[in-house]
């Protein structure tokens, strides 16, 4: 491919790409993001290609391996173009039928989405409620693109924003547009991106750097991975525009090693962009030079904090540095550095293409545009969802997420990653944006969203996040290293039945010390405790009294067989791995509390029509029947 040297050549290239494509040619887009790959998408692709080859249909049907469109729960999934027919949970054995349906222009009913309420089958991707209630400005492109093909990206208007910014605008104008759009950093801080760009641009040192923060570390979050895997060129395009606006000629993409496919796709994207002249010297003939290098992190959570990331890039231990000075003034190798998260960079082409007003037309007063969340936990439709800022939590959990599986009761939704907070049912109608989430004692974070149902123990949940943070603390400052450890000790004691009166006050006192931490990891560490303590204090108190109401903390509940319900079916005794159930033919069964490991096998084994096995909060259970009173006398036999 010859290098593109001007706006005119770029226009010609786009025209050529578009003219070589027939929009009516059938194309089977198979999601090959990490989620669907784990569910066997690679085998599906092979099966489809083999079938096409066997039938000699190579010129008639295209198979495109794409990025993740978000509905990971139902993978492997495919979308058949031009009709946009969406099939879910497609197996390699379905390949033949899929090819036949493409040829015959029919629809395979059994692979369609079935609306759980109406029972109706939904043909088109956009009509599935999971997608219908989203606004997928960023990840919506994933299913349309082969991430390894720059032509696919060009065909949907890719790099048009780059051409517009570099060839038609001054750097200051680009900064102005981003400021005007109201875009705020998607990595967690929510700082206005345009202002951050301006600080870096105005820093006196002529050598500046731009960095993509792809060190996505929140447990259960994978928004950035999906963007890098599925739309690497969009991230890259945003970065090049940012570099131009800021005046940087060198950029870095810091991505965690645990994302091999993201590393592969972005590395290839950089190489291809260089070949086309979107990177390198004199980009598009604008006179602007810019190169990007991919750096892999070893997976330390704290390296997502920008000063720790910088140190890691410099080859030092990933420990945060005090701010100020901010990276915009003194960052990488002491040069002004602008660091934005993957999703922030991916929004830039959108702002340039559609204009700041269009971007800002979506969202709330203080938070513009869309936000991608990874919706996980006790919710029917797990996956990635991109929603307009200002949507309510209820809409995300119920309209998009489809509600709680098994008709269980909703308990809380956790946002903001490990240092975020939990919001109870009373806050479900809250509008989701940066400021509202912070006000509610949580935060936007990078977009993790974990739904919890009645069976989640909030104390144990808070303990999980503190254990994560204790493990991920860099250990530099005392309030974080020692403070989290002390809070964790208290919480662990509480979940193990060793909680004491006064523990809750001590926890609250410790949260004050966290505020003296060096970086956001330590400062945010009390959030999981504070927010659960605020909304679910009764659960903490119950634990201190020796009861776990959610039956999660093993030391704080017991299994018990109700004598009057036991029919001596012997199921539970046979399933118990600990030999903790005494019983026999025609004998009422009894749990030996000393032997019981609380695995719950007996509860599952007990036939629902008897429902004899129950759980009792606390350690005290009714005394077992004396052995001579355990014989079941059956009537009429």
């Amino acid at each position, binding site marked *: 491919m010859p290098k593109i040297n001007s706006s005119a050549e770029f226009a010609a290239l786009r025209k050529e790409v578009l003219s070589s494509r027939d929009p009516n040619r059938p194309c089977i887009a198979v999601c090959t993001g990490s989620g669907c790959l784990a569910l066997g998408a690679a085998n599906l692709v092979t099966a489809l290609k083999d079938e096409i080859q066997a039938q000699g249909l190579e010129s008639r049907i295209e198979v495109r391996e794409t990025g993740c469109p978000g509905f990971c729960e139902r993978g492997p999934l495919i979308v058949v173009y031009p009709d946009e027919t969406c099939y879910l949970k497609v197996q390699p054995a379905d390949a033949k039928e899929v090819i036949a349906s493409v040829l015959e222009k029919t629809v395979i009913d059994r692979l369609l989405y079935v609306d759980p309420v109406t029972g109706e089958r939904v043909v088109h991707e956009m009509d599935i409620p999971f997608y219908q209630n989203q606004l997928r400005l960023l990840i919506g492109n994933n299913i349309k693109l082969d991430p390894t093909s720059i032509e696919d990206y060009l065909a949907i208007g890719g790099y048009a924003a780059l051409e517009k910014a570099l060839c038609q605008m001054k750097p200051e104008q680009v900064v102005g547009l981003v400021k005007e759009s109201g875009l705020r950093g998607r990595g967690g801080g929510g700082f206005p991106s345009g202002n951050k760009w301006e600080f870096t641009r105005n820093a006196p040192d002529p050598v500046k750097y731009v960095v993509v923060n792809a060190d996505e570390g929140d447990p259960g979050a994978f928004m950035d991975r999906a963007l890098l895997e599925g739309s690497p060129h969009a991230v890259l395009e945003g970065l090049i525009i940012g570099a131009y606006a800021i005046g940087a000629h060198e950029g870095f993409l810091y991505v965690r090693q645990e994302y091999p496919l993201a590393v592969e796709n972005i590395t290839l994207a950089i190489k291809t962009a260089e070949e086309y002249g979107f990177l390198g010297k004199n980009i598009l003939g604008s006179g602007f030079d810019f190169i990007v290098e991919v750096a892999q992190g070893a997976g330390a959570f704290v390296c997502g904090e920008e000063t720790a990331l910088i140190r890691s890039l410099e080859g030092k231990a990933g420990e945060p540095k005090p701010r*100020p000075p901010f990276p915009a003034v003194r960052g990488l190798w002491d040069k002004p550095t602008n660091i934005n998260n993957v999703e922030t960079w991916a929004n830039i082409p959108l702002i340039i293409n559609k204009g700041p007003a269009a971007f800002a037309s979506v969202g709330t007063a203080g938070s513009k545009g869309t936000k991608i969340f990874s919706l996980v936990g006790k919710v029917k439709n797990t996956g990635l969802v991109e929603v307009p800022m200002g949507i309510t939590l209820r809409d995300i959990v119920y309209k998009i997420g489809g509600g709680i599986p098994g008709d269980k009761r909703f308990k809380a939704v956790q946002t903001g990653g490990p240092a975020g907070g939990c919001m109870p049912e009373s806050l479900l109608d809250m509008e989701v944006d940066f400021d509202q989430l912070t006000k509610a004692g949580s935060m936007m974070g990078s977009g993790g969203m974990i739904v919890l149902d009645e069976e989640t123990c909030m104390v144990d949940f808070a303990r999980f996040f503190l254990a994560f943070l204790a493990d991920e603390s860099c*250990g530099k400052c005392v*309030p974080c290293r020692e403070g989290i450890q002390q809070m964790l000790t208290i919480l662990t004691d509480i979940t193990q039945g060793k909680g004491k009166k006064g523990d809750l006050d001590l926890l609250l006192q410790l949260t004050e010390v966290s505020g*003296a931490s060096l970086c956001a990891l330590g400062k945010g560490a009390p959030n999981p405790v504070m927010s659960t303590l605020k909304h679910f204090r009764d659960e903490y108190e119950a634990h201190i009294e020796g009861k776990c109401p959610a039956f999660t903390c093993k030391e704080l509940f017991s299994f018990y067989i109700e004598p009057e319900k036991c029919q001596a079916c012997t199921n539970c005794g046979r399933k118990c791995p600990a030999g903790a159930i005494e019983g026999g033919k025609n004998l009422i069964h009894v749990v030996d509390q000393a032997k019981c490991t609380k695995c719950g096998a007996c509860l599952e084994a007990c036939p629902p029509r008897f429902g004899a096995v129950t759980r009792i909060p606390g350690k005290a259970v009714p005394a077992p029947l004396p052995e001579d009173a355990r014989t079941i006398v059956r009537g009429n036999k």
Partner: protein
Amino acid sequence: MSELVLQIDGREVTAQEGATILEAAESVGISIPTLCHHHKLEPYGGCRVCSVEVEANGRTVVVAACTYPAEKNVVVRTKTEKLDRIRKALVEMMMAHAPDSEKLVELAEEYGADKDRFKRNQSFCIHCGLCVRYCNEVKKKNALGFIDRGAKKRICFIPEIAAKECWQCKECFPLCPTSALQAAFVLNEAITTPSSAEHSCSCGHGAGK
């Protein structure tokens, strides 16, 4: 270097641009407690005992005086009830490691800290980093460093370097506010006894073998 004026504990203080709050305060005799700070070393901000409140643009934040730059017109408070509570708790957390450290005992007296508030930890080290930083920044030998992270983080001599450099130096020893450094060194000594050529003391480890 231009000068700027800020307010510390109600007093107008003139500071050089680039100075830290700690330096600005000390220049007028306002004392802020420190532990991991050392005038020969780069500010570190590890122990946070020097935490002060800084008020700017209507917001009050707790920052480390040793690393935070003196800024124009900010209002700094070095003694408040909240800071006392924070310092007390920090000292208590460190005393779980080193209850008999002179420096900590001194601070404990000042802030009414209870050395037994938290469960005793096996390690004496409070991670002030004075030894590591001194060896790195002043001696430029890097004979010891931190390994691991979080609660598992500890200081460790690099045997290959320590065997050559430490015998004659040991300048880090008096810096350590606890006995952790000595403990780590003794451990290291056992595995790095130098060869007779480098080692010529009378301990019997090297010469004559």
